[in-house]
């Protein structure tokens, strides 16, 4: 089919605009990556944009001397793994129960859950609750409050409801209990939807900084994103220097490190796991969005 002149112009314009968009999408990330590999004192002269001028690994070297950072990494990894596993388990279990038409009070339960999607107590009452539960400054505050996601429950429940009845009937005849059916039949066939929800939850955990910011004051429990935010608002050089002799010695001898270059390196370290898993994320997230937007 031949395109008319107008259509051709439209298409060219779109190609140009989207190319421009791609550059804008990538540049901030690329620029920060470049700065993290560029000598700090040189970056301060300005004009470091697309390529490092004085390539160095020393920013990363110093950052890895910081025990706070490594510790925060651990906190984030632990919360992401345990938080995702617990949340997925309880949410899927709940979804399965809620998908059963014979469940007594099913309608009432559903209303009970739906209300929380439209109205919440807000920040302060939640804070008071966490405080009175004695969860301030504990690891649990990072995973327990968010264990059940009503939205995810609805998505998983929709999927479970769509499973063919015959699948469970035969198991029931064989004398399988509801738990048996859930673990041995329903879970194995629900791989894609559970993987999608798991990834949503995991990325949420990895990126969450606010929970750490309001509920945690102890350094050794801070998730990486919360620590990163503190670092951006403080002087990371003196902080690392005051706690680590090797790093201090290196910084004193070279005088090329700047607060900014260290911050960039820290930022990149916190981003790398996302980038490495991005191909999976992209595949499953696109699926997830489409599952979620299907109206029941």
């Amino acid at each position, binding site marked *: 089919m031949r395109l*008319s002149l*107008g*259509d051709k112009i439209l*298409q060219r314009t779109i*190609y140009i605009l*989207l190319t421009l968009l*791609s550059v804008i*999408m990538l*540049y*901030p*990330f690329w*620029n*920060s990556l470049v*700065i993290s590999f560029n000598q700090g004192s040189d970056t301060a*002269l*300005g*004009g470091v*944009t697309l390529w490092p001028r004085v390539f160095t690994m020393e920013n990363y070297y110093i950052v890895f001397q910081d025990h706070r950072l490594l510790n925060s990494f651990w906190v984030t990894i632990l919360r992401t793994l345990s938080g995702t596993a617990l949340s997925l388990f309880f*949410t899927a*279990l709940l979804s*399965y*129960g809620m998908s*059963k038409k014979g*469940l*007594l009070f099913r309608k009432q*339960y559903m209303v*009970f*859950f739906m209300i929380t999607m439209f*109205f*919440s107590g*807000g*920040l*302060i*009452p*939640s*804070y*008071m*609750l966490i405080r009175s539960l004695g969860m301030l400054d504990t690891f649990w505050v990072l995973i*327990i409050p968010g*264990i*059940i996601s*009503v939205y995810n429950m609805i998505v998983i429940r929709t999927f479970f409801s769509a499973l063919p009845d015959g699948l469970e009937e035969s198991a029931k005849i064989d004398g399988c209990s*509801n*738990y048996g059916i*859930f673990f041995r039949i329903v879970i194995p066939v629900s791989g894609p939807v559970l993987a999608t929800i798991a990834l949503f939850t995991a*990325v949420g955990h*990895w*990126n969450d*900084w606010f929970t750490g910011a309001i509920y945690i004051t102890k350094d050794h429990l801070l998730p990486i*994103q*919360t620590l990163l935010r503190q670092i*951006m*608002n403080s002087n990371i050089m003196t902080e690392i220097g005051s706690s680590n002799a090797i790093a201090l010695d290196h910084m004193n001898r070279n005088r090329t490190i700047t607060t*900014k270059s260290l911050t960039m390196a820290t930022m990149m370290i*916190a981003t790398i796991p996302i980038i490495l898993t991005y191909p999976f994320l*992209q595949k499953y*997230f*696109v699926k997830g*969005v*489409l599952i979620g937007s299907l109206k029941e």
Partner: protein
Amino acid sequence: MKAAEKPSIWKQFTKQWDLQSMVWPGIIFVFIFSYIPMYGVVMAFQQYDIFNGILKSPWVEFMNFKMFFQAPEFWNVMRNTIVISLLKLVITFPAPILLALMLNEIGNMAFKRFVQTVSYLPYFLSWVIVSGFVFTLLSVDNGTVNYLLERFHLIQEPINFLAVPEYFWSILVSVNVWKEVGFASIVYLAAIAGVDPTMYEAASIDGASRFKQIYLITLPSIAPIIIIFMILAIGNLLSAGFEDILLLGTNPILRENSDVIDTYVYRVGILNARFSYATAVGLFKSVISVLLLITANKIARRADVSLW
């Protein structure tokens, strides 16, 4: 016990104890972490103090609300909340629709996939990282934006963008578009893919240009989903943003343009420990939001689209 009065229900209930035991952990979690805080909003009508707790703190009726309405920050906070929300509604909301329409015109699959991959990426980064990018790009000493502006002699002195209140709204909205546009376009792309292709064929036989086809076929076809997202956006009109504003607006100088209801609640509630007052402000916001959502849904029902 009730069991004695209604033996049949109780019997049914105990008979399906295994199903019920799957649901009850969830009910208990949601009760604790969602319903107890909902009950906690009664603090808004008290002069809460930590030693007496919710049960014994004195009641003050609407005093906290009145205090908020009369506070010197009130009009400023409301203005910022509404202006930022409207800016997001007018710019951040349609941007992914536009992107989806453009992506749909791309015949080269490799290019299309590349643009999608690249534009979804920012969605997966935390706001902390994104704010770090913004600080880097806009920084006074070596940020790319100042570097380029100086290079092309558009400015003499580098500008400290994140310390000038007048720039804050534009920066905030641009960064939001940058972070969300790609990912938000997925739903619209899927909706566009569902449009019956014979409609386009018929239109092009009639000599309609691509632009006309987009306007007359694609847009009306995806209108229902646009309306649904519009309802949700209107329900969120008083949620102008939180993490983004908190992280980008760290400089207190920006407050005249950056302070919105949510950041205000955080500041007076958590940082200044005025619990009752902040709860009242939060409750004021929640109630209006629910009302807005219901109203928007009612209006949308006239177009046969509804959330529930």
